[in-house]
């Protein structure tokens, strides 16, 4: 196994870990972290697989840079929402079951 495939698998690991954490952990800050970890996993996969050919493929690199910027935008929004939820409800997690 070549090293870039290894990194691609690490990316998958990160993605899965993040997904699990998003579902399981109720604390919003943790959910935000988990989404970021998931994103990193996807980015890693995207770039690592581009190493398969000898010449570097710059397109995934550009995509990942775009993705990183999108990720921080989403994180900023998530953070402000989290703070507002805390301010309104006094708790940093979502109500467990939506009202039926």
């Amino acid at each position, binding site marked *: 196994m070549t090293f870039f495939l290894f990194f691609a698998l690490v990316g998958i690991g990160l*993605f899965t870990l993040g*997904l699990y954490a*998003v579902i399981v952990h109720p604390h*919003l800050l943790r*959910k935000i972290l988990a*989404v970021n970890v*998931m*994103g990193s996993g*996807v980015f890693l*996969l*995207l770039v690592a*697989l*581009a190493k*398969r050919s000898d010449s570097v493929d710059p*397109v*995934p690199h550009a*995509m990942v840079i*775009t*993705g990183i910027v*999108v990720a921080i*935008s*989403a994180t900023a*929004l*998530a953070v402000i*929402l*989290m703070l*507002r*939820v805390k301010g*309104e*409800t006094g708790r940093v997690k*979502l*109500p467990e079951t*939506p*009202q*039926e």
Partner: protein
Amino acid sequence: MSVLIFSIHWQVMVVLLPLAGAIACFLWPRRGVMLALVCALGTTLSVAGLSWLVVVEGAQRYTVGGWGAPLGIDLYVDGLSLLMLIVTSVVGVAISVYANGYFERSRARAFWPLWLFLWGALNALFLSADIFNLYITLELLGLAAVTLVALAKGAQPLSSAMRYLLVTLLGSLLFLLGVALLYHSSGSVDIAILAERLSASPVVWIALGLMVVGLLLKTALFPLHFWLPQAHASAPAPVSALLSALVVKASFYILIRLWLEIFPPNNFVLGQLLGLLGAAALLWGNLQALRQTRLKMLIAYSTVAQLGYLFLAFPLANIIGWTGALYMLLSHAIAKAAMFMAAGNILRFGGHDSIADLDRIVQRLPLTVTTFALAGVSIMGLPPSGGFVAKWLLLEAAIRSAQWWWGVVLVLGGLLSAVWIFKVVGYAFTPSPVPHEVRAVPASMEWSALALALTAIALGLFSSWPLALMMVGLPFGEGGGS
């Protein structure tokens, strides 16, 4: 005249005008309303120009940057995307007029640029022929939509917005992972090139599976709908309208595009599965709607149900079925926007939206109740309305493909929705024991909602034009389908 029309790059205008409008509203918030309305008009005109171009010259491919796929990004307009653009414009203009009366000054400052951003994102999404570009438009759309939900006051909207944000991010990431796998198995992110190069291999199936799950999450197909009722019900009324009418449809549009273009043909099982989920959504959503005591919650659950109709086209998989589903999308978008706007009027009028306390509102807000009833006619699928045409086509597809059980589901869904619609209308006719304080509703809010409801009815009388438009560029293939 026609030279002018053909020399303008309408595709670009359609995307850039709302974005420019958003920036202008951001720079000069005090003139937000004026700028936004001008922009809404300009965008609508651009969509009209684009429609003319497409109707006259057929489907259009546009190379941004002049490079062309696979290196550059292409925009592609055919009947399918044009239809989505037109729906967006129709609903968009009505919502703009409505929102002008709805928001007070402080929240209007936030609303206009966000809404225009959302509009731009929708238009960009419907035009894009590039799955990575679609990811960015999805994010743009999601972030704008979440923020708009959170503009409502109170704890409930914030919690729903937060849940919605997490869901939409999760959906986007699943989609992006699929994009990554597809890129690495084909070397392109252009849909047309992907369609040529992809063959049914495990990677492709897994990638498509991820994308489908991500998109279903955003489209809120049962059982992934858990986030939708809260978010759509607690948002400000114009936002609820545009979420239910347009935003959930955007991810459905991508799904249908991918399905038609790049899915390997032997996907019978997946089609049946999607149909099954759609049927479950239809029944579950309507049953839940029946149990609701608050009007906006009820309408939100009805959105869950109506989304189910759209997925009934997947197992039918013939042209009549697709056109039926799209017609459903069209008429649901317009009718549901009208309905949410009517609910907004009722909420503003009595200060509450408890169904049992509607208190003879039919006498005091006759226009709004008419709006609700007309929109209800379309949602039930009674003639003459867009909903009827859609249901007719879907039912015809079910009978022609000898899958009558989907027809049973269709009829049952329509009847269930009739039950809750008439429940609401019935309460609108009866006095409630407790009198309520009332507040006047601006005429612009009542009339814009009514205009949409009437459009939904008109769709039942003039269906030939939208149906012909859908077929431009043959988005559903030529023959009887796979």
